[in-house]
């Protein structure tokens, strides 16, 4: 059974399109070596989960993929992050355009202090879409994709800060979708949400799978097991193990992975 699965993995990895290819990625914040020699591939249209205890580097890894770490002081990076074969850390890269292609949903809901409509229209507007009718279509389509439309369609003019936590988080997802990304990063998107809101986000992730490549950083190993195809286990800035989620959770190859998922530490 295990052998069968690993043969599936090898066949898949050779056949499937690679969306993101990370090679020998090292990240430093001042003197702190936050990521050590990370190499992995993310396939097109998969859901990859990144798990690990606090300070394991999983969020830092995620934020490297669309260069959100550039905002941190003393940030330094070595190695390559290829998106469709092109290194995102090339000096010629248009960073705002990269962030449009690689959207992110943060750990805490971060609606901007404006109406629901404006929150979603913000991204398209910045890219030059000014026409109201087009924006209305984008807002409706994005909210529907994020499974929020039915709840807020009569509240588009209300402040986004008035929505519930779960709604705000789906609004942030809709907002990320509005600029038509190719990859969506989730940084512990359900850490502050109740189980029902969490389930809604997870359902939405499945729905989105046919169009997007998704990477989920989570502290909740059960969530990783539920949602993801493959799982990567990070520990102290290192990638300990990556493989099919079933395999990671049933027969991990590294002792540290087993210790973590069985709750012996972390």
């Amino acid at each position, binding site marked *: 059974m295990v052998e069968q699965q690993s043969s599936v993995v090898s066949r898949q990895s050779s056949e499937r399109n690679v969306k993101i290819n990370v090679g020998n990625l090292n990240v430093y914040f001042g003197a702190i070596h936050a990521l050590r020699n990370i190499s992995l591939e993310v396939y097109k249209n998969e859901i990859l989960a990144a798990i690990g205890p606090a300070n394991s580097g999983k969020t830092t890894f995620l934020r490297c993929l669309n260069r959100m770490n550039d905002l941190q002081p003393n940030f330094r990076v070595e190695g390559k992050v290829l998106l469709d074969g092109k290194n995102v850390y090339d000096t010629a890269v248009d960073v705002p355009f990269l*962030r449009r292609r690689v959207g992110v949903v943060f750990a*805490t809901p971060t609606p901007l*202090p404006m109406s629901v409509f404006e929150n979603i229209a*913000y*991204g398209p507007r*910045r890219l030059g879409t000014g026409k109201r009718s087009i924006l209305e279509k984008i807002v409706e389509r994005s909210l529907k994709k994020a499974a929020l439309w039915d709840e807020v369609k009569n509240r588009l003019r209300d402040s986004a800060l008035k929505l519930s936590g779960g709604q705000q988080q789906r609004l942030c997802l809709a907002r*990320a979708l509005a*600029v038509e990304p190719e990859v969506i990063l989730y940084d512990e998107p359900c850490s502050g949400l109740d189980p029902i809101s969490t389930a809604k986000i997870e359902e939405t992730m499945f729905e989105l799978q046919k169009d997007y490549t998704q990477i989920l950083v989570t502290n909740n190993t059960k969530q990783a097991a539920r949602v993801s195809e493959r799982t990567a286990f990070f520990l102290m800035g290192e990638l300990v193990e990556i493989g099919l989620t079933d395999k990671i959770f049933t027969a991990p190859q590294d002792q540290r992975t087993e210790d973590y998922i069985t709750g012996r530490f972390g």
Partner: protein
Amino acid sequence: MKRPTEWFIERWILFNGIFSIAAVGLIFFFLTKEGFNLFKHYPLKDFLSGRQWYPISEPPKFGILPLILGSFWVTAGATLIAVPLGVASALFIAEVAKGWIKEYLKVGVEILAAIPSVVLGFVGLVTLVPMVKQMFHIPTGLTALSGAIMLAFMAMPTVVSIVEDALTAVPRSYREGSIAMGATQWQTIYRITVPAAGSGIVAGVMLGIGRVIGETMAVMMITGNAAVIPHTLLQPVRTMTATIASEMGETVQGSDHYFSLFAIGIVLFVITFIINLAADFFLHRKK
């Protein structure tokens, strides 16, 4: 049962609180009492709208319109200079500058705030005044414009530090949310950070204006002190503060002239009070 030290500290704080409020009340009471003596002999309307300030002629004329306009021109000019410069500096310090540049700039602004106004006035007198005179080919460089430029430097630190605080207080999540959607840094500043810090920015501007209106020493030295109604910024003016400061020493206590200076004080007090109230309103307004 409270401990005696607790009891004592509570009473001590209470006493100090009441004392400072009482002091403000007494100052206002004294100002009003003295100032209103003028209106026994001189109509309030003539005082506020009179176009001539001849306090020691016979009969004396206590029209403070030229002084109000003098204060207005200098303040308006200083505001026009200080606000764009101050807000831009604050934006640069809070949003763009990094590392040691940021620290140096912050310290620099604090040093600017620490320069005594008389020193600024003195420096302005020997450098700025001749410059203005030459540049515009006017008989004297002691003009409203010189005062406005000099006062702009005094208002700037107030504007910069309050606006910078307001910008820094904008949650990081707003910026990240905007950046993550592909907005550029400038779009983020312009569309998200500045609107979110809006009330703090207005408050900073208001307090800067308050600082300028109340300023005395520097304006007295470089605005020419001619109590005439100004038509352009290139004329000498005299502000309300400079009038009080320069004339209080030479008036007879208890005379109408003496009372009229107190009455100017009331006008000044009311204006500053309104500005501070407005600043407070903006500062504490919830989104």
